[in-house]
């Protein structure tokens, strides 16, 4: 069974030969540079570090093929690009000065090599006029997607791996808080709901425009398309289910419908935190794959209940804890975590093993190896019973 066949079986809720592994194919399933360098050292590989979106400030690597092969990754990512003008502007800026993206939001450097989103161009906006006046990015800029067709065609011709398309942060809610700051936007959701909804809609329209171009370029050469919006915290949700259903859910529903009209690829929805109380909503609006299944948070930690109630409608990608087990656990504890996730989410297919979000800099490379090797060992379906 090829990696691609393995992934397709799993996301179609059938048992493949083993649980597929997703690593390195997007930011949320990716790896920061320190564990990556550690892995290359362990494997005796060298070569320059490359970054997804060609974006060192984000710090998530584009792993070389030999590393992806050693990690048994069954998926390969295809990424959009910042507009050429944005890349040129940032390359020409003084070292250590803020990185500002095409939307006008950006990161500042806290200490050498550590960047944090702190540039919010619409922080003070509360009116519809401010939305109309804003200098929004050109989503039709062809340099965003010019490389995509050939890259995906090459992967598809090879046929070995499932193709996950991950255009950068085409997430309406997360973009809104990039534009305003999280606190400011959450306050506007409560106090200025008409403005907040108009901002979300203005952003969502632009997300749709770009994802439309991405899908046009990919044609049939895509198996999974990633969108999302972080909606949870470790304990609960960032907003009430009522507020989600009133303001954001219709926007997500329209967005997913737009995608479904253009592709047969599965919709992979990334949303951090304990989103258990929204899972029925996600099923209703057409989410196929839930990521990252933050297993250390609230009700989502009850993986058995998640699988029992939603396993026929949702596939799951993630669930391997990145807050405690991967950074602080021993390789044996990592193996136990993998075994638990596979034993709970794996039966009947519908599970792709991945870390809950990016593998951060403090994760020992030995734990990354332990995670994927345990997945190969415990994920084999024919010996499950």
């Amino acid at each position, binding site marked *: 069974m090829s990696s691609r066949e393995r992934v397709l079986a799993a996301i179609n809720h059938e048992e493949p030969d083993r649980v597929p592994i997703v690593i390195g194919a997007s930011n949320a399933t990716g790896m920061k540079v320190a564990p990556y360098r550690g892995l290359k050292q362990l494997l005796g590989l060298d070569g320059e570090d490359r970054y997804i979106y060609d974006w060192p400030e984000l710090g998530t690597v584009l792993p070389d093929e030999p590393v992806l092969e050693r990690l048994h990754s069954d998926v390969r990512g295809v990424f959009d690009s910042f507009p050429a003008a944005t890349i040129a502007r940032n390359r020409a800026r003084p070292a250590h000065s803020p990185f500002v993206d095409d939307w006008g939001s950006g990161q*500042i450097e*806290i*200490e050498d090599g*550590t960047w*944090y989103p*702190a540039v919010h161009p619409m922080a003070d906006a509360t009116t519809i006029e401010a939305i109309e006046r804003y200098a929004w990015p050109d989503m039709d800029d062809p340099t965003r997607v010019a490389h995509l067709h050939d890259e995906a065609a090459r992967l598809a011709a090879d046929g070995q791996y499932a193709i996950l398309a991950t255009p950068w942060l085409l997430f309406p809610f997360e973009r809104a808080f990039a534009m305003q700051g*999280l*606190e400011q936007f*959450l*306050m506007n*959701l*409560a*106090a200025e709901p008409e403005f907040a909804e108009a901002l979300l809609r203005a952003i969502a329209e632009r997300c749709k425009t770009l994802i439309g171009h991405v899908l046009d370029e990919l044609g049939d050469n895509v198996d999974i398309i990633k969108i999302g919006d972080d909606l949870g*915290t*470790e*304990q*609960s*949700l*960032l*907003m*009430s289910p009522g*507020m989600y259903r009133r303001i954001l859910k219709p926007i997500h529903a329209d967005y997913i419908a737009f995608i479904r009209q253009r592709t047969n690829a599965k919709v992979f929805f990334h949303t951090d935190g304990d989103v258990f109380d929204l899972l029925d909503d996600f099923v209703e609006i057409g989410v196929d794959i839930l990521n990252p299944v933050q297993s250390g948070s609230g009700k989502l930690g009850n993986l058995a209940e998640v699988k029992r109630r939603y396993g026929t409608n949702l596939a799951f990608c993630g669930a391997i804890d*990145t*807050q*405690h087990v991967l*950074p602080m656990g021993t390789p044996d504890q990592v193996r136990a975590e993998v075994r638990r996730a596979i034993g709970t989410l794996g039966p009947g297919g519908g599970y792709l093993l991945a870390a809950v979000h990016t593998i*951060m*800099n*403090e994760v020992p490379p030995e734990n990354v190896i332990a995670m994927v090797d345990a997945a190969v060992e415990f994920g084999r379906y024919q010996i499950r019973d």
Partner: protein
Amino acid sequence: MADLPGLSDAVEAGDRDGAVALTAAAIAEGVTPQAILDAMTDAMDAVGEDFQANLIFVPEMLVAARAMRESMALLEPVLVRAGIQPEARAVIGTVRGDLHDIGKNLVAMMWRGANIEVIDLGTNVTAEQFVAAVETHRPNLVGLSALLTTTMPSMGTIVGALRKTDLGGARIIVGGAPVNSEFAERIGADAYAGDAGAAVVVARQLLGLGAAGGGSAAPALGNAAT
């Protein structure tokens, strides 16, 4: 006639204009500043309880705190003239290496809502800055926040540095996404607070303070790691 229940309702609902107007009216009518303050702290107590019970979420908590903050701007000079002091003082910050501040800000807001004076050191705060702030402000509470797993060791370093100084009885509370009570205990903090509502409850337990509204002080509960 002054409408203190109305003021409580306005703060709780995050109605900043209503809360400010009712505060101004109450001050103008000569209502005792303590009674006006109690109306606000009662409201924030209800906000904290509703938040912990998942009846309201972060957006509603933020706008309630904003309504109180804007009303307090009117009330503070009156409180000062009347010689009314906050019940306690806290120093708070997001630890070195981390700029995430919404959790820290929510705790600061809720502590202020509980009539605790808060000195907010901001984000990316070093051990030296925490120690200096403790020496300068002599707080009853020190709050440390972190979102990134990467910065958890920094939290341990800061607690270690604080323990080596004369804390003057100040109690250390830690919180943030990757933090839990076992971690709090391991690094030598006095308590862990899981969210901004819990931070008020834990602070009151550690300091032996009663709930808002002029109720009698509860006995100290000692180490209240939850």
